[in-house]
């Protein structure tokens, strides 16, 4: 391709004279600022939102940003976060699952019943609960694909039906307590990463970021495509390293980094890989963008829908197990109330489009951090849940409103 009279020094993808090519760190920063101005906000609004929320609560109550409270926050956000991760999957294909709360409740009940009532090993209980979740998702997929009932209605039915199943499983007793010495409860309440290992993980994460970026840049250079400069990559990695080390050292002042939180982050990273680097993830985005075009491109659209529902319900079940472990009990109200809407709100606040085809797993992570920060802050202020509902609702509205404005700007600036 380079023999077409263009100098070999110009990468294949940068030969168009209309392109402005960033060189060096200042250009990269400038390009990033221009992206934001054009409305390609990425995660910025959520991160800004978190900063605002944290500042407000910290000024109202000095314990909010204390290490102890943040450690608690890192625990409490995980169950809803896993649910939100599932919601991202169905939102990607342009569908919705309203029943994640009920499914998580059923899964918690199954875990408790199998473990406590039938005295089976923990592993069996967990597998049974997750399998039940996946089965529920599969049924949703079949009803949606074959009967053609909108996902909104299918899962609304599921919301009620599985609440019933949960109550039936726990009939006669209000709650089943999980033994305190079980692995699940200890995982969700007591297990922390040793301090040195937490630092090591932080370094490994930044190193991994640098290494993958470097390998990617090298393959691109070899293929005569443009690649980000090593300088920029190292700067990014160092910033990441500094942020991670600071977070770890702050949490390490008290109990440290919870294994449950590490589990959640790992889940987010794995799902992110699936979304962005596999054919399946591409198919999810494609179906969410244009199902008919995907079908004509040879994608098994029905299969993709089913997979999304199965992933969502499976993750909901996982979240339910974690919620029960956190509480050391499965009760009739596990997964009821605002759990459902918190999970959906978290995904949307994080920047996942309700109309399909756009979103990332980091949306679940950041969104749930917002939701849980509000909830934690208001609890510290001794305000009752009425405030929490109103404030969470307002934040959701602001987040979606901001996204709509940004989308218009993106379209006006040709960034889709």
């Amino acid at each position, binding site marked *: *391709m380079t023999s*077409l009279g263009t100098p070999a020094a110009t990468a*294949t*993808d940068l030969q*168009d004279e*209309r*392109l402005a090519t960033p060189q060096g760190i200042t250009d990269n920063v400038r390009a990033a600022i221009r992206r934001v101005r054009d409305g390609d906000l990425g995660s910025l609004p959520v991160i800004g939102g978190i900063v605002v929320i944290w500042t407000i609560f910290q000024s109202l109550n000095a314990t909010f940003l204390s290490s102890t409270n943040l450690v608690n926050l890192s625990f409490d956000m995980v169950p809803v976060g896993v649910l939100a991760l599932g919601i991202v999957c169905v939102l990607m294909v342009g569908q919705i699952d309203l029943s994640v709360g009920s499914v998580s409740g059923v899964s918690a009940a199954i875990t408790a019943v199998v473990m406590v009532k039938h005295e089976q090993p923990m592993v069996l209980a967990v597998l049974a609960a997750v399998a039940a979740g996946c089965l529920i998702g599969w049924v949703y997929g079949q009803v949606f694909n074959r009967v053609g009932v909108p996902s909104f209605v299918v899962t609304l039915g599921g919301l009620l039906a599985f609440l019933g199943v949960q109550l039936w499983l726990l009939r006669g007793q209000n709650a089943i307590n999980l033994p305190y010495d079980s692995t699940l409860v200890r995982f969700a309440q007591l297990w922390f990463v040793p301090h040195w290992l937490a630092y090591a993980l932080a370094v490994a994460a930044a190193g991994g970021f640098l290494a993958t970026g470097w390998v*990617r840049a090298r*393959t*691109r250079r070899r*293929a*005569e*495509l443009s690649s980000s400069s090593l300088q920029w990559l190292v700067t990014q990695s160092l910033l990441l390293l500094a942020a991670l080390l600071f977070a770890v050292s702050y949490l390490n002042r008290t109990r440290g980094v919870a294994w449950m939180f590490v589990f959640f982050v790992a889940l987010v990273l794995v799902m992110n890989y699936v979304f962005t*680097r*596999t*054919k*399946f993830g*591409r*198919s999810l*985005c*494609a179906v*969410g*963008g*244009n199902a*008919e*075009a*995907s079908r*004509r*491109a*040879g*994608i098994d659209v029905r299969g993709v829908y089913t997979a999304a529902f199965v992933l969502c319900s499976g993750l909901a079940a996982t979240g339910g197990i974690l919620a029960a472990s956190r509480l050391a009990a499965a009760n009739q109200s596990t997964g009821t109330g605002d759990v459902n809407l918190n999970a959906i709100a978290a995904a949307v606040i994080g920047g996942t489009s309700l109309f*399909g*085809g*756009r979103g990332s797993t980091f949306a679940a992570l950041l969104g749930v951090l917002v939701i849980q920060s509000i909830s934690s802050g208001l609890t510290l202020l001794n305000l009752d849940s009425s405030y929490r509902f109103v404030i969470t609702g307002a934040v959701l509205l602001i987040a979606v409103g901001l996204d709509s404005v940004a989308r218009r700007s993106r*379209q006006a600036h*040709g*960034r*889709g």
Partner: protein
Amino acid sequence: MSEATAVPGAATDTVLSLRGICKHFGAVAALTEVDLDVAAGEVVAVVGDNGAGKSTLVKVLSGVYTPDAGSIVLRGEPVFLDSPALAHARGIATVFQDLALCENLDVKANLFLGQELRPWMLDDVAMEKRSWQLLRELSAKIPTLDVPVAALSGGQRQTVAIARSLLSDPQIVLLDEPTAALGVAQTAEVLNLVERLKHKGLGVVMISHNMEDVRAVADRVAVLRLGRNNGVFDAASVSAEEIVAAITGSTDNVVARRAARRTTSPQAEKGEL
């Protein structure tokens, strides 16, 4: 494309020929005894009025409909195209009128949609390289592949759709109304693209409503009327009136009359005004 480039300009080398294609929908005969030949490096325009059977013909060729009777011969070999996938595998690529692109995905993701390299660890680099190669071959005017298709113009989208059809090295490209929704400059861009396909030695079947476009790029013009062949013309020598006459089935119609009025007595018309 190695096979196809071996025969540039050899317009006698028939790649695709249809003989006696019939297709009925209930009592309606959409196609009756239709014949069509396409050679390598040749652009055949298929024109006709609404309901003449153009779209049905495209769907028969792309494997969406199976014909009730008649034969399709591809490179001297009779083929039975009973699914779009099979037609695609046999080297017939179709660009449908609605393009079928995912607007939320970027250009390279759209080009390789459903045919991604390395399913469990997408080979973005190889896909991007191949994308650039395809687009450069078409001299496409797309500055960057990183933008979602939603940000492209109509002509650029058409380019992406055509480039995607070339990904599998087809021998025949079917274009259904490629210029219908485009402006002047974009239409010219797409017509250039059609010419480039021709020079690559591909057989091109172009459905169109626009006489100027047809005469600009086509080598031959096949007219369909009420589901039957109504003449094949040499695009270089035929006049627009002749084609219109074949489309409408008469030499005396509103289009021909108005054209005649304009060419014979422009002065008189002005005088009247």
